[in-house]
């Protein structure tokens, strides 16, 4: 089966464009609202949506997404409900969706069951920040069978050995963490991202999208020039409490900046 995420990157490359991948926490503050936001992302020209699954202990996340996670949990949003939500969403949009979830909810669900249910619901890819490929052997096996993309992460600290391993295990795209830190940290545009991405490119021709710390349209623009796509998370989650028009204007400005 064809990977919709891979196809999206292929198509963008053909057109000489870069992917815009906005993130939103499912159920913050309600799943109804999340649906509106995903549809708005699509309307504003997003290419892929990264959908967060709330977890009690989000150790790779900064304060903005931690709080979003707490609000969603208070509403009783679980991995199971997020999968059902995607199924419902598929009646309104076909935009590629990558779930971002911590590993324990997947483990508790059962890897095989999770992969099957997520795929059936219309999820295209999965990002699990606390599951390095070293621990993902069975998860990768199940995902390959179901043609669900496994998106692994690389970081500024990754060594050549790690780059090879992560590149090999990744499908859809490789998620390059632009800062040594957690989501929503401060981005440094000092040429180091470009250098590290060129290093990754020595080992793989898979698309590389950059996230963690991208906040302003200027940053998004700079990052898009050296990568295949830009992921914006915390900054959107923060702005999400403003009136919908404010968020929409911001999303449009990001879209315009990513070329």
């Amino acid at each position, binding site marked *: 089966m064809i990977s919709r995420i891979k196809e999206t990157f292929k198509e963008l490359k053909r057109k000489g464009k870069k992917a815009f991948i906005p993130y939103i926490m499912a159920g913050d503050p309600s799943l109804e609202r999340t649906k509106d936001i995903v549809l708005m992302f699509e309307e504003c020209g997003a290419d892929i949506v990264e959908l967060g699954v709330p*977890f*009690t*202990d*989000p*150790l*790779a996340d*900064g304060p903005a997404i*931690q709080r979003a996670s*707490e609000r969603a*949990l208070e509403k009783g949003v*679980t*991995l*199971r409900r997020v999968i059902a939500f995607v199924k419902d969403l598929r009646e309104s949009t076909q935009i590629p969706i990558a779930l971002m979830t911590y*590993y*324990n*909810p*997947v*483990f*508790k*669900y059962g890897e095989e069951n999770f992969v099957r249910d997520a795929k059936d619901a219309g999820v295209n890819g999965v990002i699990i*920040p*606390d*599951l*390095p490929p*070293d*621990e993902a052997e069975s998860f990768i096996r199940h995902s390959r069978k179901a043609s669900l993309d496994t998106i*692994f*992460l*690389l*970081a*500024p*600290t*990754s*060594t050549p050995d*790690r780059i090879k391993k*992560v590149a090999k295990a990744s499908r859809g795209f490789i998620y390059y*963490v632009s800062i*040594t*830190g*957690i989501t929503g*940290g401060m981005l440094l545009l000092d040429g180091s991202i470009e250098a590290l991405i060129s290093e990754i490119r020595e080992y793989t021709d898979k698309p590389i999208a950059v996230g963690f710390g991208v906040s302003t349209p200027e940053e998004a623009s700079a990052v898009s020039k050296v990568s295949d796509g830009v992921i914006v998370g915390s900054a959107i989650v923060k702005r999400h409490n403003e009136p919908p028009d404010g968020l929409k204007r911001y999303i449009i400005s990001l879209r315009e900046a990513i070329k």
Partner: protein
Amino acid sequence: MEDRIKKLPDKKGYFSIYGGRFVPETLMPALKELEEAFFKSKKDKEFQRELGHLQKTYIGRPTPLYFARRFTEHLGGAKIYLKREDLAHTGAHKINNALGQALLAKKMEKKRVIAETGAGQHGVATATGAALVGLDCEIYMGTEDMKRQALNVFRMRLLGAKVTEVPVGSKTLKDAINEALRDWTTNVRTTHYVLGTVFGPHPFPVMVRDFQSVIGKEARRQIFDAEGRLPDYLIACVGGGSNAIGLFYEFLKEGIKMIGVEAGGKGIDMGKHAARFAGGSLGVFQGCKSYLLQDEDGNVLGTHSISAGLDYASIGPEHSYLRDKGLIQYTYATDDEALAAFELLSRIEGITPALETAHALAEVVKLAPKLSKENIIIINLSGRGDKDVQHVARIKGIEL
């Protein structure tokens, strides 16, 4: 079989199905670096000599193995020995590990150490190790625990550490670990994370066990000196499980009965205890796979214990493994039972134990009378109770 047990964890950090390394990619190279530095240090004669020298002259090892005559007579059964880790420098076993890791951090040329703390003992121990070796130090502690352990907060600051409050989640140990992991992810190039127990991603469980196993090595020698034979029972409280592994590890081959005592809190109802083997199931949390108190969706449950150091949702992976193998039995003591033991030992032996340790004592109070006078029990008296005096007074409604 026993030799195989001694060889664990395997190369990937697994004790059978438990353990592993479930962390963000950013930390993977640092864990590899730490693993290499640790295994190198084990063969490094100079490192071992320095560690041994500081254990003796700075920590005050060996700690005594004390025959608790009045406690024994009071319970009227087995002979009870206390391994006096409360007499180690800073007042608990935590220093054994913190000092070892501080030396290792220096060896790895890190400038800064960070740590989480629940009861404050590991925070104090890490701040002490950092002061001794000359490293910057920052300790993460949940708001709830800072209230319960105000004395230790002050001690850490006195030792030159920065104490950072963690006001999110349940505001206890697990949230402090999350925050320490976030700090480590951000500052990994310059910072070593001194994890305080036999938990987290490989190599922490094996490394902390190694630094703590000095407890059991000494106790073994000491009980032979005192009684000319091995004990019949070993008992220790289990939060993450470092003091228990520290005592038990050296005796694993001997077929001795070993009991780990978890925090039963207010009883085994959801959210009111920290007895992972009584109410938990297999999960992946804060870097490793082990028993975890979680709901059916894989979210981590709140815990409760009178003792901040046992108030934790998961347990060291090696404990899960040793339980499967039937080598250690696990039980729990409630807040009330621990409190009663805390007061009993103070009154009858002039030794005020930490509330964590009081859970192990509570089990002894139940067990010893059922055993014959020929039997010998060693309890790991893992920490002193000075830090808990204020908290206990508050519980009893006394203003100090």
